[in-house]
């Protein structure tokens, strides 16, 4: 017989039924609110604060300032929204990875505007009005992206006309390229650009891989974690075994490198340049470790080994083993920066997925994960991997030393780092949006102050980032009708319903996903804005400039032979006898690329003695001092 018996087909078609009885929606004040898990986050945070305050004597750098959440004052009413797969129809899936936040001066008024990405319900662009105030200009800008499941955003000037354009990735909805007319009005030019394909896209970034002065685009694609059934938000419902997808070769998707052909047209050149990393890629970045001007690429694998590619005049070869023999198994976020001011780019990679194999308490958050999985699930021998964050100290000549534990940068449930000199002392600090939401306990965001290049010290409680505004740790997540619960309902539905009849509102822990560090209110110090999962953002305004006299310089690069944004340029600034080096990659945080000036904290130096710029074009430019501190310095590439 060559036909499946229909009697059997009838039985076989009894697939796993969705828990369709649940409805997601805003909490009704009439329904009891039940927190899951029932964890006393407030007590935990109070205890952690006490412990952290005792460590202040370790700080050799300035820490006596605060971040205060001014979301209400800002006027920003954006709330990120999620799909049911992360709430009322919960399953462990990549839909809970959140979305990005990117910043650029979209209308050329000198103030930096914020683009919030939301999984569902549309993205929002908020215009900076100055003084810490913002206005929603999404509709007039035309960048809402309704009806798609958005993930990341990248601002960059793709046609060198001086206006930041915008690229947004989505899950299976097609990615979108917007052209900016210079006044904050965007046009969807995706079709004519040639950027096609519908994948499970994630992080993306612009860079000039072939140094032709035009910004190319690399798009990370995760892998097939969804099926064909369409859910309530129009999303493809995730597979129940989504996080095992890396074990199935047919579910893989490759990142794509698009070459900018000019005139806003792009072409997929991945195969011809030798770029085919195998993995589940959530994000990546670029740098120039060997100083030859050709940008190298690091793409993360969130379920296996990550990949580092050397660039040989526009052709790529994988050199991971040579540079980074061990990479974090569940790599999620990345930032190249010179943490110790030795003039060499170091690398920080956060590892989220290694933390998902066991629930640990706060006392174990700074330890590497005890990943219990076997090599079949790891997709390689354990010796290939680090099960936690990795901090690669650049020793020169292509040698790196992994120093994450010594540097104190291990954390729990980290998404992607945002780096900036938060106390303007010349040492770049780290902010890591972190935490899971339903059905996990509350997890903190980490703020690590750079203790003069010797160690990073936890300071989120000291600086007021934790606890959150008003001590809030939970938020309404979804409604649950306990009377319709089936016998085999999982704990995260059954336990909130214990002793309950009728409808309840399940409360979930809050958690951030992405962030951007920039001087939001133009007072000279750096502020932090987060994009939180299924809740409103935090607008963390620093009072550093009120607490002490600070010295800083913001450098806006303007390429003329190189791409106009100056992406890929290396800037060395000398002030007060010290030299600071930054690589302009626009990598402002997890799932985000922003168009921001480079911010140099100068410590005690009140002026800058010299600035050197290595442009992607190969032009080397010197801006001699003295240059007064505390201003925005545009540097135009000299032909």
């Amino acid at each position, binding site marked *: 017989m*060559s*036909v499946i018996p229909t009697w059997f087909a009838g*039985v076989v078609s009894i697939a796993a039924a969705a828990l369709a009885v649940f409805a997601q929606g805003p909490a009704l004040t009439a329904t009891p609110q039940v927190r899951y898990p029932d964890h006393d986050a407030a007590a935990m945070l109070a205890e952690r604060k006490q412990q952290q305050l005792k460590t202040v004597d370790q700080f050799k750098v300035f820490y006596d300032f605060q971040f205060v959440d001014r979301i209400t004052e800002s006027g920003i009413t954006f709330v990120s929204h999620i799909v049911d797969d992360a709430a009322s129809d919960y399953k462990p899936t990549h839909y809970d990875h959140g979305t990005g936040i990117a910043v650029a001066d979209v209308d050329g008024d000198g103030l930096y505007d914020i683009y919030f990405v939301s999984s569902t319900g549309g993205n929002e662009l908020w215009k900076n009005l100055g003084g810490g105030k913002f206005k929603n200009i999404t509709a007039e800008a035309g960048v809402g992206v309704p009806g798609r499941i958005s993930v990341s955003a990248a601002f960059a000037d793709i046609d060198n006309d001086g206006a930041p354009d915008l690229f947004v990735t989505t899950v299976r909805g097609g990615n979108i390229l917007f052209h900016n007319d210079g006044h904050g009005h965007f046009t969807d030019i995706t079709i004519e650009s040639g950027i096609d394909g519908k994948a499970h896209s994630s992080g993306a970034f612009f860079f000039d891989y072939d140094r032709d002065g035009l910004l190319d685009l690399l798009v990370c694609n995760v892998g097939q974690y969804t099926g064909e059934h369409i859910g309530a938000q129009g999303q493809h419902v995730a597979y129940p075994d989504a996080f095992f997808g890396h074990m199935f070769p047919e579910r893989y998707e490759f990142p794509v490198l698009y070459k900018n052909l000019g005139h806003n047209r792009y072409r997929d050149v991945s195969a011809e340049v030798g770029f085919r990393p195998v993995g589940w890629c959530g994000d990546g970045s670029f740098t120039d470790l060997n100083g030859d001007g050709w940008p190298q690429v690091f793409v993360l694998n969130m379920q296996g080994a990550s990949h580092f590619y050397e660039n040989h005049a526009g052709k790529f070869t994988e050199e991971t083993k040579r540079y980074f023999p061990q990479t974090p198994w569940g790599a999620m976020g990345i930032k190249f920066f010179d943490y110790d001011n030795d003039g060499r780019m170091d690398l920080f990679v956060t590892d989220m997925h290694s933390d998902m194999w066991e629930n640990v308490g706060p006392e174990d958050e700074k330890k590497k994960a005890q990943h219990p999985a076997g090599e079949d699930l790891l997709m390689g021998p354990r010796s290939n991997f680090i099960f936690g964050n990795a901090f690669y100290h650049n020793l020169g000549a292509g040698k790196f030393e992994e120093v994450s534990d010594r540097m104190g940068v291990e954390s729990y449930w980290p998404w992607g780092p945002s780096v900036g000199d938060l106390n303007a002392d010349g040492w770049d600090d780290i902010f890591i949006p972190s935490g899971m939401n339903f059905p996990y306990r509350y997890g903190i965001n980490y703020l690590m102050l750079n203790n003069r290049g010797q160690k990073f010290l936890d300071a989120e409680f000291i600086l007021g980032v934790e606890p959150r505004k008003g001590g809030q740790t939970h938020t309404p997540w979804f409604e649950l009708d306990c009377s319709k619960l089936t016998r085999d309902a999982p704990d995260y539905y059954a336990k909130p319903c214990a002793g309950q009849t009728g409808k309840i509102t399940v409360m979930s822990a809050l958690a951030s996903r992405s962030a951007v560090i920039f001087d939001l209110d133009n007072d000279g110090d750096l502020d932090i804005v987060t994009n939180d999962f299924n809740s409103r953002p935090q607008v963390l305004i620093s009072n550093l400039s009120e607490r002490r006299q600070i010295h800083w310089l913001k450098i806006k690069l303007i390429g003329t032979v190189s791409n106009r944004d100056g992406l890929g340029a290396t800037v060395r600034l000398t002030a007060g006898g010290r030299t600071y080096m930054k690589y302009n990659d626009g990598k402002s945080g997890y799932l985000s690329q922003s168009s921001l000036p480079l911010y140099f904290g100068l410590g005690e130096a009140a002026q800058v003695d010299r600035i050197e710029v290595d442009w992607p074009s190969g032009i080397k430019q010197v801006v001699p001092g003295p240059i007064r501190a505390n201003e925005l310095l545009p540097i135009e590439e000299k032909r």
Partner: protein
Amino acid sequence: MATSVLCACLLLSQAITPEMIDHARAGAEAQEQGRLDDAIREFHKVTELQPASAAGHANLGNAYFLKGDYRASIPELEEALKIKPNLMGTQRTLGVVLLVLGDADRALPHLEMTGAPDLLGVAYYRTGRFGSAIVALEAALEAKPTDPDLLYYFGSATALASKRTHDQLIRIKPETASQNPSPPEPGNSPSADVVSLQKALALKPDDPKLLRAFSRASELASQQTFEKLLQSNPGSARSHQVAAERQAADGHLREARLEYAAVVQLNPYTPDVHLALGKLFAEDGNWPAAIAQYRVECELQPANPEPAYHLGSALLKTGDAAGALEQFAAADKLRPETPRILLALGQAALAANDPTRAEAAWALLIRIDKDGEDAAAAHVRLAALYRQQGRVKEAERESAAYEQMKNRKGR
């Protein structure tokens, strides 16, 4: 050195390469578009590139399954599970394949891993574990209360469980078998009553009161379930099947045949229907028709020894000893050391002029069964065979053994 080579092989065995991904994705796309031969070809390449890829073998096995080539799917699915036992989807698919082919015994452990109550219920039913079948099918019916297949199996399982329990009760306490049982608790559905009684029986399997109550409750549940099936799915294949069984039980063979014919017309692949039809034809002495039906059932359930056994019996009846022997041998391979199969195998072997094989079958039967009725019959047949061959002492030994058995059991 040997260890490091082995480790290296293991490392290589886990690596996913771009080429593998390309073939795997091509296979998935072909499968999605219904081009199953292309899908099979692409998945084959994946397993060639990476023989230790559980996903590769699982995909290949699944593609064969979708194409209906169940025999080809089994080794691939088994290989996938050997590499990675916790592939639940593959466990389920393999369980389904084996169930379809009639090998519920092999299917059961795979289905038990997945916990799917519908498939488990069918597998338990087919392996005679009616109590477990009842519990599983009741759970499945919660999600699909009018599913005709589930109702049929639940009704059948409760009927058979009722009979078996009644027989057990007679053996334990004959005098209680005819007493009225306690009435069911108010508010309980018959199904819930049966399930709770079944669970209680599992703890106290020889409790006469429980046995009596369960027997009555399951008989009632069976009747009500079949009524529900007939009302909720009138004109369906399963409702005709129930009608056929009722007609046959009442001795209305012609009406039963017509009902079975209706089942076949609606769904020719319903398992056991051709077998039942074959038996009806056999009762009528219509051997060619019986044989035809048995052959169809053998095709439908190649891993089920029952159709092969009945086909062998029919062929033997019509003088096709060689054909009968082939069928009994197949049944024996599927279910080795089964007394009645061995008995029949011996008969067919003798009829096919292979007395050595006959002797071996009956001797094995006696070793297994010892005191059973089939063993008794084997002694008699061996005695006759030995007499034919002039092996007098052995003939007398067998006769004596038979007499001993007869005397022990008061025949």
